[in-house]
């Protein structure tokens, strides 16, 4: 959402009143226009409409208020309105892209009243050029659902990644981020349309990328989010999850520019889980063992002096620094931009870090009818990632175990019979093991554009995405877990190489007819992709010198090597046309035929298409006669529908591979074996996603307030799903099948307001998105899919994807009498083996026993409402930005709390956890019993572990100061700004873990499960400097 920078003053109260009036008018069906009184006089008004530069403004609409009389200015800006009854009128001139102008004139019978207008250009969103895939349109002409973020919005936020720039700014976009340095966030547009990876398609300067490209935000000129079928259908088979179109910056004609952006900051995990210390743990463990009739382990009888806080051991203060330099310039026929940057980040979990070097050259030149250009980005990323699951281990490790223990191989403490736990020492796992990822990437596009006629272009697009990466995992000889020594040092060294080539031929038409009344913008063409990925990996165990961490230094005993290649090809023919009549009737359509190597030969190609219509009602002569709504400056209604595809499955999924090296031994010698291990579905077809959208765009108070509202509905059919099948079929993997139908629907509301009082300016942007999700049908004979720990997330017909399906905890038995009186209709005890202090489960199906059949639908991890509020204020040289963001109406299944509160196993527990005892008749926490009795009563699959996930986060608080011009003017008249930015300042939530925004290692069917496999989002304070010379 682009925030308008200029406009008239508007009072908030008026804004609200007008909005209400507008809505009322709409609700009352005011769209059926009452004809205004027809005056039949002989007076005339005539004049010229000019811009503020004095140049005539063609096609401006001039309307006489209170009448239906209007005229369109000609190419010289001249207009004439006749047959006007004498009187004094307010006359308004307007033109898209200009601030409208209203003047008063008095008309007398038979006379000509002269009335000239001067319109000022509005540099606001409505006229902004929006790259809608293969065409470029003005925002006002778009009849699909497209959201935009400009480069300046991004740079104002000082975020290290592009997806953080989208957070809270764009309706319908859900960004789940992770605090792990270098790990791209997961972006989901308008809910989850399938059972697979919900990632959208990224198109960077025309190049198709399936993964978040992790661009340097300073290089981004604009981001367009294509949310509905109308816009996304150009990308056909790859667009079912929406498309994010990114343009990088280019040089501008005129003087050369130099920009430098640098910042430095520190980062911390803002929240800790308050865990038990050694003596508290010992007391609880004694209780649990004694209740089970067992002798407590020695460490619980005498906790000794060790008292480890495992969170302190694993979390650290991280740092982030980023330096970017960009130089650009151009002439009327050429442009160039060179930029380079370094980002360096050390994480808030020890040993994790990320460093990125990036370098970019964008250039173009025009020679007669030919224009050529290129965008080339080189980057190197180096990441030391997480090892293991430290956030589970910090609660599983008990406080009586030291972090370091010189008596152990490797020098780390771990569980022992005296201090039993099967947690892994997370410090050891992070320190003694490496998980180094290095990637060298080139993303480049080149184009040639021939102007065949003035309005017909042929364009050749070539694209390349080359990624050469390596992953090195080393582990020393050590022991990090009870009974799990690692007797060998091991090394895995893997190299991967991916090349993606794009070749497109496009014919573009952009022209107008009939004095500009008809405008047509169209493209037809072909696009073809050739993707090859290969990987080589070697594994060694046993290193006589652990300083030599190379493959050749390892023993060949037990070694293994592997390598494979994955080819992928796709071809498409596409067309898109946008037609505008009289600036107010908008029509656009897209068609695309895709063929993909991922499907079986008989089902390789699919057709996709979409259409949309729009009506800029505010261009109509009668519009301003509509009570209430007529006061709006801009009003557009639009609707779209279409079909998109999805091929987001593995390659060759329609074939059942024969796996080699499934060997055996006869007479002491190995014999070769090979067999089919997985079932395949030879009839794989495209997933089809029907997407519809109706929306409106409204500009009020001289477009100072703009509102966008949408209702959307997406129905995915023939869903591609890696469907779990009964284990009795003996398949080692789940085959991909076309199974089921899922619908997503909801509302989006975006509002932005610009307040300008000279020295004080305030931009306000509000975004609200609602999402509902429902499974309409499933394959598998309608059998639900189960995912997550113990199948807690169930995907069933009539429910959202991954609804939590659990038993209901109805309380704690306080006495034997309560157990005895908890009976079914026949008087039989429902939980006969329970003891006082055990959990009472609700017998929801009333069959007298507690079983899996007593599970119920208890909510899910899909937020019903997401909201963002962005405030950006400037006063003289100071600026302040605040970004609030939140998600509401969803549940999180807290597996971490299951570990900390389960009371039957060997973990540490949350401080303040007080199990039921006769003296402490808790009604929420059962008695502590180590072993089978406790496990039998403490079922994972219960609503005891469900929590409300709602949160409101102060995502950003930025305070900036622009240095006085007298200090900077000597440098070529440049500007300099310093700022401080606090990210993730505070989160308002009842959720008890580190971070309600959980981005795990994601099963799409088990969203909203905090399994501890996360990296909390840090709180960071950064100090930065922007120089613009």
């Amino acid at each position, binding site marked *: 959402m682009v925030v308008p920078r200029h406009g008239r003053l508007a009072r908030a109260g008026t804004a609200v009143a007008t909005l209400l009036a507008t809505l009322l008018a709409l609700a009352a069906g005011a769209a059926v226009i009452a004809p205004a009184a027809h005056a039949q006089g002989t007076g005339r008004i005539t004049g010229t409409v000019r811009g503020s530069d004095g140049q005539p403004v063609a096609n401006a609409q001039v309307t006489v208020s209170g009448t239906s009389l209007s005229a369109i200015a000609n190419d010289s800006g001249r207009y004439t309105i006749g047959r006007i009854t004498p009187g004094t009128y307010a006359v308004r001139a307007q033109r898209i892209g200009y601030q409208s102008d209203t003047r008063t004139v008095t008309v007398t019978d038979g006379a000509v009243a002269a009335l000239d207008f001067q319109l000022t250009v509005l540099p606001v969103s409505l006229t902004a050029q929006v790259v809608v895939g293969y065409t470029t349109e003005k925002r006002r002409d778009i009849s699909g659902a497209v959201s935009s973020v400009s480069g300046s919005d991004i740079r104002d936020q000082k975020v290290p990644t592009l997806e953080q720039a989208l957070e809270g700014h764009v309706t319908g976009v859900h960004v789940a981020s992770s605090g792990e340095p270098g790990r791209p966030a997961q972006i989901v547009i308008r809910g989850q349309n399938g059972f697979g990876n919900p990632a959208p398609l990224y198109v960077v300067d025309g190049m198709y990328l399936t993964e978040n490209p992790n661009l340097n935000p300073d290089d981004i000129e604009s981001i367009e989010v294509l949310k509905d079928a109308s816009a996304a259908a150009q990308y056909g088979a790859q667009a079912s999850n929406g498309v994010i179109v990114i343009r990088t910056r280019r040089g501008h004609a005129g003087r050369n520019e130099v920009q430098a952006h640098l910042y430095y900051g520190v980062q911390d995990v803002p929240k800790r889980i308050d865990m038990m210390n050694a003596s508290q743990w010992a007391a609880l463990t004694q209780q649990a063992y004694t209740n089970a009739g067992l002798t407590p382990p020695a460490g619980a009888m005498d906790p000794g002096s060790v008292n480890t806080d495992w969170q302190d051991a694993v979390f650290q203060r991280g740092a982030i620094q980023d330096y970017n330099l960009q130089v650009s310039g151009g002439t009327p026929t050429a442009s160039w931009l060179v930029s380079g940057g370094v980002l360096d980040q050390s994480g808030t979990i020890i040993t994790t870090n990320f460093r990125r070097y990036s370098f970019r050259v964008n250039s173009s030149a025009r020679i007669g009818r030919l224009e050529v250009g290129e965008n080339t980005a080189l980057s190197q990323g180096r990441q030391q990632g997480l090892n293991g699951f430290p956030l589970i281990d910090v609660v599983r490790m008990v406080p009586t175990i030291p972090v370091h223990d010189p008596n152990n191989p490797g020098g780390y403490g771990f569980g022992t019979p005296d201090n039993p736990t099967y947690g892994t020492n997370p410090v050891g796992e992070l320190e003694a093991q490496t998980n180094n990822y290095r990637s060298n990437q080139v993303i480049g596009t080149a184009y040639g554009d021939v102007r065949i006629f003035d309005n017909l272009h042929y364009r050749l697009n070539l694209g390349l995405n080359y990624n050469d990466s390596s992953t090195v995992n080393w582990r020393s000889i050590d022991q990090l877990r009870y009974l799990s020594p690692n007797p060998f040092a091991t090394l895995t060294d893997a190299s991967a190489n991916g090349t993606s080539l794009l070749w497109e*031929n496009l014919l573009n038409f952009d022209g107008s007819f009939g004095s500009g009344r008809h405008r047509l913008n169209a493209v037809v063409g072909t696009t073809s992709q050739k993707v090859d990925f290969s990987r080589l990996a070697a594994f060694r165990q046993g290193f006589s010198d652990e300083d030599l961490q190379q493959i050749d230094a390892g023993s060949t005993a037990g070694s293994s090597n592997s390598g494979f290649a994955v080819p992928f090809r796709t071809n498409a023919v596409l067309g898109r046309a946008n037609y505008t009549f009289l600036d107010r009737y908008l029509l656009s359509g897209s068609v695309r035929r895709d063929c993909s190597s991922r499907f079986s030969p008989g089902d390789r190609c699919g057709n996709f298409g979409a259409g949309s219509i729009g009506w800029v009602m505010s261009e109509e002569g009668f519009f301003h006669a509509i009570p209430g709504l007529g006061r709006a400056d801009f009003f557009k209604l639009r609707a779209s529908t279409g079909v998109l595809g999805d091929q987001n499955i593995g390659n060759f999924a329609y074939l059942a591979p024969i796996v080699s090296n499934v060997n055996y031994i006869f007479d002491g010698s*190995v014999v070769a074996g090979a*067999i089919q291990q997985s079932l395949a579905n030879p009839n794989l077809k495209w997933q089809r996603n029907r997407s519809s959208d109706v929306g409106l765009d409204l500009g009020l108070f001289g477009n100072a307030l703009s509102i966008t509202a949408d209702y959307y509905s997406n129905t995915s059919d023939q869903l591609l799903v890696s469907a779990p099948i009964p284990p009795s079929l003996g398949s080692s993997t789940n085959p991909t099948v076309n199974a089921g139908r899922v619908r997503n629907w909801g509302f989006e509301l975006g509002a932005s307001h610009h307040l300008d009082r000279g020295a004080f300016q305030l931009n306000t942007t509000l975004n609200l998105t609602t999402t509902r999700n429902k499974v309409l049908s499933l394959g598998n004979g309608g059998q639900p899919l189960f995912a997550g720990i113990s199948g807690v997330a169930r995907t069933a017909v009539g429910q959202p994807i991954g609804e939590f399906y659990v038993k209901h905890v109805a309380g704690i038995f306080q006495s034997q009498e309560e157990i005895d009186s908890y009976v079914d209709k026949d008087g039989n005890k429902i939980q006969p083996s329970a003891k006082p202090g055990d959990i009472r489960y609700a017998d929801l199906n009333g069959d007298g026993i507690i079983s899996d059949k007593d599970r119920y639908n208890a909510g899910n991890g899909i937020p019903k409402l997401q909201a963002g509020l962005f405030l950006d204020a400037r006063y003289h040289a100071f600026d302040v930005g605040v970004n609030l963001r939140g998600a509401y109406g969803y549940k999180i299944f807290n597996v971490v709390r299951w570990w900390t509160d389960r009371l039957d196993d060997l973990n540490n527990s949350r401080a303040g956890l007080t199990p039921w005892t006769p003296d402490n008749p808790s009604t929420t926490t059962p008695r502590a019993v180590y072993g089978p009795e406790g496990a039998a009563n403490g079922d994972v699959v219960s609503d005891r572990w469900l929590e409300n996930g709602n949160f409101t986060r102060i995502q950003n608080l930025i305070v900036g100061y622009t240095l006085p011009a007298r200090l900077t003017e000597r440098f070529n008249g440049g500007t300099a700004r310093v700022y401080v930015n606090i990210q993730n300042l505070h989160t308002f939530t009842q959720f008890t873990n580190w971070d309600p925004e959980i981005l795990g290692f994601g099963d799409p069917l088990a969203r909203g499960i905090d399994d501890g496999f996360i990296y909390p989002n840090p709180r960071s304070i950064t100090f930065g400097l922007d120089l613009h010379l």
Partner: protein
Amino acid sequence: MRLRALFAAVVLGAAIAGCQADTDITNPNQPDSQTFWKTQSDALQGINATYNALLRLGTFLRWQGFTYDIRSDIGYSPSPWTDLANFNKFTFATYDFDVNHDTWNDSYTLVFRANQVIANVPSIDMDATLRDRIVGEAKFLRALTYFHLMTLYGAHIPLITAPPLPGDRPASSDSATVWAQIEQDLTDAKGALPASYDGADLGRATSGAAQALLGKVLLQERKWSAAATELQAVIQSGRYSLAADYGSNFTPAGRNNSESLFEVQVGDPTLAGSQGVPGLNIAKMIGACGPGYCDGRPTPWFFAQFFKDSTVDGKVDPRLDATLFWNKPGGEDVYGVPFASRYADALANHRPDTLYFKKYGEYWIPGDQSWDANIDYKVLRYADVLLMYAEALNEQGQTDEAYPYVNQVRQRVNLKPLPTGLDQTGMRDAILHERLLEFGLEGQRWLDLGRQNLFADLDALKAHDPEFQFFTPNKSELLPIPTAEINLNPSIVQNPGW
């Protein structure tokens, strides 16, 4: 203008014609099911891969020791892995617990592979004898696996005899159908398999193995007469004999010896030549504390049984020393460390559970027990054939005829013959007692409990193994079918009580 338009048309036409990437590509990494199953080599690789499924955690590699032995009254589990300890107390936090889940899944993995061989090999143009043999081997392996599924999960298992399609949801079967299929497979295998193999194929299923397994299956069905017929034929073939040294059966030296009818051949992954074929994991999980995890331990009652009798020269039954570590007079090294010093703390506390399983461990190697013990797992031993035949005779009232077969087993370990004059009940008890001592940790006790319905005397079992206080009659005899199967397969009926 015309020229330009022509130019545009030519460019676009050439572009559309020229840019198409060929979407018809083949998998460069692996053959697929449509190109495989064409040659003799494919058939051999297919059956070898079916044998490979014997080496999965849930078939013979690891959990067998828990499902058939530790769960019975000869063992108990003090494992700190709560779910594992619970498993041996017939208790589950989730029916998808690893041991249960792996046992089910891995058994059906083998069935899937065997079914591919049985479905595809007959149509391969190859040597007919070899082709029939390979199909026979697959039927043997399938029957062995269904025998395990029946004895662990009961008759509600789905019976799958052909490679399935992804949409299949096989229904629960019934006892008669599954037993009949197992018998049919073994009858077919008996006819198709050779009596023995030359060196390079040593370890493949033989006709003798098929016939003995058929006898074992019939015995478990309490079809005493039919069982006796098959077992008698195996004995009369004269192809098998007891190894002179009982303990040698469980060392590398006893690999494919004269007593072995069928054994799971393991690899030694520390050698590069093993190519991923694992060794036996039972000793690591269940073996002596220290070198192993001792997640399963012998019950004191089991230990005491070895002292009910002694050898003719008054010594302890030598099978004890091949089966268990105990604080025996004169001492013993446990993986290179004397028992008395390795377990000094436990002994000082007079803990009665200072007993560990020894069988299938590489205790002669000082240090740690590796995960992959290089010891084959004996699925069918001749001693089993003898004792099963004796049982089949006794159950038919031919108690006197049973004596020589029991005594043959006793004689090998230097025990005196059984006392004469036992009635049928006495002989039944004597055979069960003999099996107890002969087959510790060999996957037999759970079968014995079921076949002779020893579950009926729950008080006795509780006395043998206190874990049986968690045993619920008419429920705990069978494992629960894993939740993953129940959830995904509407045609499956869960076992009673679960």
